[in-house]
C-alpha cells in the first residue's frame, strides 16, 4: 500500500477508480480528502476579468409609492394569480387591471420600481395590448434591459416589430412564423413580398397557400390583383375564399366591377323613392368563381341567398349615400335580405358610415327575432364603430331595459366603449344593475354585466356599489345574487384603492 496522494487531481483520480484498485488505504484517502475539502471550500473560486455592462441611463422620474408597488407586483403575476389579492377571475381581467394601473401610473409620470420591470416586460411580450403602456412607466431602463434579452426588443424604441423573425423563418419556419415573416415584409415592401409569395406559389401545400395568401391583407393594393385572380382558380376552397375576400376589398379592381355589374342587375335604383329587387335566377360559374356560395344555409331561399352574397361583396361605393339608400322603400319580402347583404359588406369593408346607418335597424331585427347569425353580424358592425358612438348606443339601449339590451348584445357594445365608461354609460349600467340585481328572472344577465362593470365602471362609484350591496344584504341576506354584488363591489374597491395609491 502506498501513501495517499496529496494533490487534489490525484486524489480525485484515486477516488474515482476506488481505493482498492489505486492501492491507497480508503481511510487515508478519506482523511486526505477531508483536509482538501475544507481547503477547497474556503478558497472560493472567484471569476476574474469580469466586464460589467455599461450602466443604464439615469432616470430622475419618481417611482410609485410602496403600496402601489406592492399592488403592481401582485398584478404582474398574471399566470399564478394571488387569488386573495386580485379580484379578476381570468387572465384577460387581470391584464385589464394591470393596463389600468400602468395607464394611471404613466399619467402621473411615476415609474414602476426597477425590480418589477423584468416581469412587466415579460407581461408585455405575451400580451400585446400592454406594450404601448410599458414605455411611460418603465423609462429608459426598459430599453437597456431589452438590449440584454431579444424577447423584449419591442420595448426598445429602435427595434422594428419584426426583428424577432429572421430570414431563415421563410425557408424553414413553421407556417405561423412564415405568415409573420411575410406580413412583416408586406409592411415594409409590399411588392417584394408579393413576388416572394408568387415565386414559390405552386410548390406550397394548399393549407399553406390559404394561410400565406391572407398576409396580402397587409398593404393590399391593385397590384396584388393578378395573384389574387390566379388564386380564385385554386383547387382548394379555402384559398379561393381568402382570395375572394381580399379582392372584395379592392374598390377599383375587375372583381369589384364584376360584382357591381351583378348588383346593378339585381337592384333597380331608377325610382328615387324605391328599391326594386330582381334577384338572380341562377348561380353561374363566374359567380361561383368569385366566391359566391351556390347553396344557401337552411331557412333561406336560393335566390335571396345569391342576392345577399352579391350585395355582401359589392363595393359600398357603388351605392348612393347610406342615409339616402336606406330611406327608400322596399318590398317587405326583400328588406331583411338587402339589409343583411349591406351589413356584411359594411363589416367586411370596415365602413363606419354604413355600419352606423345599419346598426339600429339591424338591432331592431335582432331584438324582434333574436336570430344568432344576425346578432354576430350586429357585433361585427359594432366592432367598426367609433367608441363615442357606441357609448351613445349603449346608453340608449340600456334605457329600454336590460332584457332587450342583452338580446341585442349590449355587453359587446359596452366592452367596446371607452374605458372607464363615460358618465352616461356608467349611470345607465348602474341603474340597470340596481334594478335587476337580486331579481330572480335576471340572474345570468346581471352576472355578465356585473363582471364587466367591475372592470369598466369609473372606480369612483365604489362607494355606491357598496351601498347597493348593503341594501341587498339587509333586504335579502340569503339571496343567491349576493356573491355577484360582492364581486362587483370588491373589484371596484380594488380599482379605487389602486388609483388612489397612484395619485
Amino acid at each position, binding site marked *: 500500500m502506498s501513501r495517499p496522494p496529496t494533490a487534489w487531481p490525484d*486524489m480525485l483520480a484515486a*477516488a474515482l477508480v476506488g481505493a482498492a484498485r489505486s492501492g491507497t488505504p480508503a481511510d487515508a484517502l*478519506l482523511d486526505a*480528502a477531508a483536509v482538501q475539502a*475544507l481547503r477547497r*471550500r*474556503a478558497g472560493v473560486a472567484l*471569476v*476574474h476579468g469580469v466586464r460589467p455592462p455599461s450602466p443604464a441611463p439615469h432616470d430622475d422620474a419618481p417611482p410609485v409609492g410602496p403600496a402601489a408597488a406592492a399592488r403592481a407586483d401582485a398584478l404582474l403575476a398574471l399566470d399564478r394569480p394571488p387569488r*386573495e389579492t386580485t379580484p379578476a377571475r381570468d387572465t384577460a381581467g387581470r391584464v385589464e387591471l394591470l393596463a389600468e394601473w400602468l395607464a394611471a401610473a404613466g399619467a402621473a409620470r411615476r415609474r414602476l420600481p426597477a425590480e418589477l420591470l423584468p416581469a412587466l416586460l415579460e407581461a408585455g411580450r405575451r400580451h400585446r395590448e400592454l406594450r404601448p403602456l410599458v414605455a411611460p412607466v418603465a423609462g429608459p431602463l426598459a430599453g437597456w434591459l431589452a438590449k440584454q434579452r431579444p424577447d423584449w426588443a419591442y420595448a426598445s424604441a429602435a427595434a422594428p416589430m419584426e426583428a424577432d423573425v429572421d430570414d431563415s423563418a421563410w425557408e424553414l419556419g413553421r407556417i405561423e412564423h412564415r405568415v409573420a415573416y411575410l406580413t412583416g415584409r408586406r409592411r415594409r415592401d409590399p411588392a417584394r413580398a408579393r413576388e416572394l409569395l408568387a415565386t414559390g406559389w405552386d410548390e406550397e401545400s394548399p393549407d399553406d397557400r390559404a394561410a400565406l395568401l391572407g398576409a396580402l391583407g397587409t398593404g393590399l393594393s391593385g397590384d396584388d390583383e393578378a395573384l389574387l385572380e390566379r388564386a380564385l382558380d385554386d383547387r382548394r376552397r379555402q384559398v379561393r375564399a381568402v382570395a375572394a375576400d381580399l379582392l372584395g376589398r379592392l374598390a377599383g379592381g375587375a372583381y369589384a366591377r364584376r360584382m357591381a355589374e351583378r348588383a346593378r342587375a339585381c337592384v333597380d335604383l331608377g325610382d328615387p323613392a324605391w328599391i326594386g329587387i330582381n334577384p338572380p335566377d341562377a348561380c353561374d360559374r363566374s359567380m361561383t368563381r368569385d366566391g359566391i356560395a351556390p347553396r344557401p344555409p337552411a331557412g333561406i331561399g336560393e335566390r335571396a341567398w345569391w342576392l345577399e352574397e352579391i350585395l355582401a361583396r359589392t363595393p359600398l361605393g357603388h351605392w348612393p349615400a347610406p342615409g339616402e339608400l336606406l330611406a327608400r322603400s322596399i318590398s317587405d319580402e326583400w328588406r331583411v335580405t338587402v339589409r343583411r347583404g349591406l351589413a356584411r359588406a359594411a363589416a367586411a369593408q370596415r365602413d363606419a358610415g354604413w355600419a352606423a346607418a345599419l346598426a339600429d335597424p339591424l338591432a331592431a331585427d335582432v331584438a324582434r327575432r333574436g336570430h344568432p347569425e344576425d346578432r354576430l353580424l350586429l357585433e361585427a358592425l359594432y366592432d367598426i364603430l367609433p367608441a363615442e358612438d357606441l357609448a351613445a348606443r349603449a346608453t340608449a339601449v340600456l334605457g329600454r331595459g336590460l332584457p332587450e339590451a342583452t338580446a341585442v348584445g349590449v355587453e359587446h357594445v359596452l366592452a367596446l366603449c371607452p374605458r372607464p365608461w363615460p358618465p352616461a354609460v356608467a349611470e345607465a349600467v348602474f341603474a340597470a344593475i340596481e334594478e335587476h340585481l337580486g331579481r330572480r328572472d335576471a340572474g345570468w344577465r346581471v352576472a355578465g354585466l356585473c363582471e364587466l362593470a367591475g372592470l369598466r365602471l369609473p372606480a369612483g362609484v365604489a362607494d355606491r356599489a357598496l351601498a347597493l350591496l348593503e341594501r341587498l344584504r339587509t333586504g335579502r341576506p340569503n339571496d343567491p345574487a349576493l356573491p355577484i354584488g360582492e364581486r362587483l363591489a370588491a373589484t371596484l374597491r380594488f380599482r379605487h384603492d389602486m388609483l388612489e395609491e397612484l395619485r
Partner: protein
Amino acid sequence: MLSLAPDATAQRAARALAGDKAWCEVGLSGGDDLPPTVWGLCQGSDPQPYQVCVDLTEPAYTCSCPSRKFPCKHTLAILLRWSAGGVPDAPAPLWVREWQASRADRASRAADRQDVARNGGESSGRAASEKTALRRAARVAAGMAELDRWLADQLRGGLAGASRLGYPHWDVMAARLVDAQAPGAARLVRNLADHAGDPERLLVELGLLRLLASGFCRLDSLPPELAATLRLRVGLPVAAEDVLAGPAVRDRWQVLGVRDEPEGDLMVRRVWLRGAEGGRAALVLSFAGPGQVFVRDLVPGTALDADLCFYPDHVRVLIARRHAPAAALTEVRGARPVSAAMREYAQALSADPWLERWPMVLASVVPAEAGRRWCLAADDGTGVPLDPAVGTPWRLIATAAGRPVTVCGEWTAAGLRPLSAWAGDRLVRL
C-alpha cells in the same frame, strides 16, 4: 404592518376595520412600569366589545375575540390605526395593565425555570434525564462509527459508478443514521444523492462527512467550541433554554434576507440578520408543517433592537429579548468588499467546517455575465459566482441597472444566491 397577517383574508378584514366605526376607545400607553402598548375596544358581532391589546416591543398581542387566526383582524386593524397615527396617548385601563402584568409574571417564571435548569434542578429528574442522554449518546456514537465505515466503503469501491446508484443507495445509510438519532448527519448523507453525478463535489462532501464522523469519535479531545458545533451538526438536540442561558448579544439587527425551502414535509424559513454595530451574522430558523404558515414578524428591510442568543454554531440564534419595535432600515451597515467577505467566510468555515450557507453582504457589486455564468463583479473585475440554479437574476439586474449596489445573499458551495439588494433608499427583495 400587514405582513404580520396570517393570510390575505385577515389583511382585508383588518383594512376594513381600521376605520373609526368599529372602535369605542383606543389608546397608546407606556411608561416606566409598562412597555409601549396599543389597546382598544372593538365592537364586533358580540354585544361585549372585544378587548385588543398589542405590546409594541415584541410584537405580542391578545384579543378577546373567538377568532382562531393569530394575530386576528382586530389586532391587525389597531396596528394599522397606530401606524397611520390614529391612536392617541391615553392612560392604560385596568385590563391592559392586568395583561401586561400577567405577561411579565410568565416571563419571570420562565426565567426562573431556566435558572433551575442551569443550576442543576431536582436531582431525581436529572438523574433520569442523564440516563436517557447516555443511552442516546451511545446510539449516536454507534451510528457515527457505522457512517465512518460506510464512507470508507464508498471510496474503496470508487466513485465512478456513483451516478448510477440512485436514491435508495444513499437513503439506506441516511435511514440508519435517523435510527441512530443523528438526523443532522442523516440529512448530509441524503443530500449526497444530489451530487452523485459530480465526483469532485461528491468527494468534497464525503471528506466533510469523514471529518464529522471521525471528529465525533474523539469528541472529548476537541476544543469545546468545535465539539459543540460538531454535536449540533450531527443532530444532537440543543435545548432552547440552554441557548437562552448563554450570553446574549445586543445589537440593532438588520433583517437582510429571507428564504423558504422545503425539507422533507417541512418548509424551512431562514431569516438572515446582520448586526448594524457589531457586524455579526445571525440566522433565525423557523419551520412550518403542511398547511401551516410562518409567523411573519422579521421583515426584510427592517432592523430590530434585540438581544440574541447564539447556538453552538455561532450563526443560528434565538431572540431572547426585543428592546423596541422593528424600525425601517435607512441604510445597510456591515457591507464588505468581495475579498473581505470571502475572508470572513473562510473564518466562519474554520470554526464550522460543515457550514452550508453563509450570509454575505457585498458592497459595490454589479451583476454581470462572465462566460455563461452570472456573477457579482467588483470594480477590479473579480466576480462572485452566482448559484446557477438562480438562473438569470433579472430582478437584481434591473435593480442595479449596471451600477454598483450592495447585495445581500446566501453563500453556498454552488455559488451565491442573492436575497436582497439595497437600492438607494430601500431594501429590494429579490
